[in-house]
């Protein structure tokens, strides 16, 4: 007689699986990076190649691109699972859905969010971001991108059963992620102005904590709805 699995083993199995899938689709590991890179580079082309001009917009461009990159990458968080029926299996697990969703989001962030954070310094340099802003930028991105992923997961969960999603998804996610954008950019601007950023970081920390605790619940509920 086989024993029942623990919640933790289910959690880690889900985490492993999603990482494995992402890894098998090699390009998934590259794409968010590439996209981030491309979008960022669009601006010097579209707006202004002068370093002075760039310096002005660097922070904003970085954050907006990060936002869009994570938005685009959200799309396949639940979709393939929904289509091949894996999602039903996920919902039928006896373990709390909170952790399963969390596992999926975490693995998604590891694949799409983290690389982006790691790349940001290079792009900061390309966009002539003043040196003193680097650390703040990295830290804020490090705290901000998980929030984006978590908020995103709600949107995706709500819309996964819709035929056409790309856009309604954007409409749901973007407004919600604006606070993150604001907090992030403000913090970096502060750092540029030489001010103290602790306050802003605290705000972002609070956001992250809230998102971590609530977003998976909302997503779980949304998933149940979409599948039924």
């Amino acid at each position: 007689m086989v024993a029942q699995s623990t919640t933790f083993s289910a959690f880690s199995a889900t985490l492993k699986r999603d990482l494995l899938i992402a890894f098998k689709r090699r390009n998934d590991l590259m794409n968010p990076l590439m996209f981030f890179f491309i979008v960022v580079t669009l601006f010097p082309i579209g707006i202004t190649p002068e370093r002075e001009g760039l310096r002005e917009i660097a922070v904003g461009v970085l954050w907006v691109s990060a936002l869009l990159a994570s938005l685009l990458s959200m799309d396949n968080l639940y979709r393939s699972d929904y289509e091949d029926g894996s999602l039903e299996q996920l919902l039928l697990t006896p373990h709390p859905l909170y952790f399963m969703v969390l596992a999926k989001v975490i693995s998604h962030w590891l694949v799409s969010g983290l690389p982006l954070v790691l790349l940001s310094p290079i792009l900061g340099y390309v966009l002539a971001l003043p040196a003193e802003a680097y650390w703040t930028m990295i830290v804020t991105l490090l705290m901000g991108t998980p929030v984006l992923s978590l908020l995103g997961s709600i949107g995706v969960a709500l819309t996964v059963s819709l035929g056409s999603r790309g856009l309604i998804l954007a409409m749901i996610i973007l407004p919600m992620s604006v606070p993150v954008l604001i907090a992030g950019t403000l913090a970096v601007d502060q750092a540029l102005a030489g001010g103290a950023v602790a306050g802003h970081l605290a705000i972002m920390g609070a956001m992250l904590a809230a998102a971590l605790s609530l977003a998976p619940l909302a997503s779980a509920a949304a998933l149940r709805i979409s599948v039924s």
Partner: protein
Amino acid sequence: MPATPSTSDSPAANSTPLLAARNLICERDDRVLFAGLDLELRSGEVVQLKGSNGSGKTTLLRILCGLNDSFSGEIQWQGRPIKGHSDAYLSNLLYIGHHVGVNKVLTPVENLRWSCALHEIATDVDILQALDRIGLRGYEESRCMTLSAGQKQRVSLARLLISPARLWILDEPFTTLDVNGVKLLETLLADHVENSGAALVTTHHNLSVAHHLRVLNLDTHVPDETILQPEGGW
């Protein structure tokens, strides 16, 4: 024919049923699928759910699994309503639907590792044996997107060999299976109910699992108001 199949012939008529549904009512787009449907499933039974296309088989199965709650009525697992005590129920439930839940880029082994881990602890040895028995020998390591329709189906069916769940709910599991596949699955069903399991299966071909079998036909059960009228104004 009565709504509840007469349970006289079932092995343990007096024991409390594993799964019991009382007075289920479900309508989709104000079309009544079934109303006042009662269903009892005792250990040692296979209930085959029959009915014409669109009679509501899949819907009923999904309702029983708790995947779909647009219905009224009560569902009990071993006498306790599944609402409150879902995990006791879910850890004994194995559902395989129209969509078999097999990821395309993963190999059969990797797929099973996950879908098993959601419920029970299964070693790779178990999984490989299961795949072997289900007839996927040699395909353990090839991406599922390169498998044929029937082979995908088999991947999901392999879980039947691993899971300890007592209740199987299978939605047209015989689709795309070849003759051997069908035989194999039928023996699996027989074995399962032999050792006090129970199974609820929808299929259009007539099952041959000897004396355990009971048939519930949804067509003989549809109330009158669902005689269909053309909707569009043409």
